[in-house]
């Protein structure tokens, strides 16, 4: 019997990137990322790839993490649960992962842009914040 303080989340999960298990999805995905990055390079056109819908054999997801790696920027958003955004080794290729309050992944995507949409301040929030600041100044 496990000790009472043991939480399911405390049990570590190890997944390792295995060459042997690859079914070739990574190559195809990298090719698509390259194509979209080219568009960004030429005329600033942004793109998004939803990783949720892609089939990954065990280990391929970790392989993708290893290949894309982590670049200079990492950001964390707290909006009804955390979201983690990193720029990969390839500038303009961002990895955006949204979690809910319980820590489950609700969206996972590669965004090709100079800056992911979700990081930018939304116009409506800017307006609402302005009202609050004005109210603060008037006190």
């Amino acid at each position: 019997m496990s000790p009472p303080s043991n939480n399911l989340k405390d049990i570590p999960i190890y997944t390792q990137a295995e060459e042997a298990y690859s079914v070739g999805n990574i190559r195809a995905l990298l090719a698509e990322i390259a194509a979209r990055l080219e568009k960004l390079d030429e005329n600033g056109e942004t793109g998004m790839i939803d990783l949720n819908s892609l089939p990954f054999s065990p280990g391929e997801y970790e392989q993708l993490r290893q290949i894309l790696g982590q670049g200079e920027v990492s950001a964390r958003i707290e909006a009804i649960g955390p979201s983690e955004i990193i720029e990969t080794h390839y500038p303009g290729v961002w990895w955006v992962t949204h979690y809910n309050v319980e820590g489950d992944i609700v969206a996972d995507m590669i965004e090709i842009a100079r800056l992911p949409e979700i990081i930018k301040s939304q116009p409506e929030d800017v307006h609402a914040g302005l009202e609050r600041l004005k109210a603060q100044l008037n006190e």
Partner: protein
Amino acid sequence: MMDHETLGERLAQQGVSRRAFLKFCTAMASLMALPPGTATAIAEALIKARRPSVIWLSFQECTGCTESLTRSYSPTLESLIFDMISLDYHHTLQAASGTAAEAARETAMKENYGKYLVVVDGSIPIGNPGYGAHGGVSFVDHLQQTVKGAAAIIAVGTCAAFGGIPNAKPNPTGAVSVSDLIKDKPIINISGCPPIPAVITGVLAHYLTFGELPELDELGRPKSFYGQTIHDRCYRRPFYDQGKFAKSFDDEGARNGWCMFELGCKGPTTHNACATTKWNGGTSFPIESGHGCLGCSEPHFWDAGSFYTPLSAPTVNIATIAAGAAVAGAGIAVALGVADRAKKRRAQQAHEKMTVKDL
């Protein structure tokens, strides 16, 4: 009174930032398998929408479907769906009860006639109206009255969609599904026992975004979630294809994660999103946890033979019938054999010896 502010106004009141809502719409787009870039468009559409009135009717159910949708107490992205709708009537979740609750329902129907959504969980007993009633009104009447001005009906769970467990043999209450009773309204069946909560949310989000029901299969289920079988997307499929099957629970094959076809898994004949969307926020699903699929999103799954009989094996006893048939066959053969012998004997006795004179 019903509040009919827009979603944007309501979110602003609750202190939910536009960024948080954009995150929610990104999750919804991913769930509905829409291109990720449409999240912004979804957000714009939903923000301006007046929250539609939803009347939730619960009949012969175990409340598992409601539980499935309302799993946690803290605000979650899934529960934001409740901000997108105006849930005007729900037995378990609403504060009012008795005549006040019924009055709320009737007001919602009147004010939103032709535009409100009806969500149903549980099957409807027609054997005797007394088997289920709210304040003296039978479930059947309740359903038929409430759907009169509905824009669409969402049958949540296998009970509402196909009859479910009350409908299983011998069906003592005469339980039927929503589509057995209502023929003149668009019905979408979100089957499963319970359905995956994300599917319920996804369908509601689709309806709210596009104003129409998603594409349905021949059983009225949304194709985007029920278009493929568990078998088609099962991660243990390579073992099935290689013929590596677990023979019993917890044997070596089972521990190696081999296919559970021989343990009765109904994955090949079951349409649902369990293998991809999974349960509890993508944690696992029955097969990944070591038990074969029960086929809970298919009609009559309770009566489809044992959960542990493989799909290639019969659901009834064949051996006894075969033995009986062998005995019967033998009996007929003996009877006819005796008759034939008697005929032969008679023919021999009647045989007249030929003489030279006959030639």
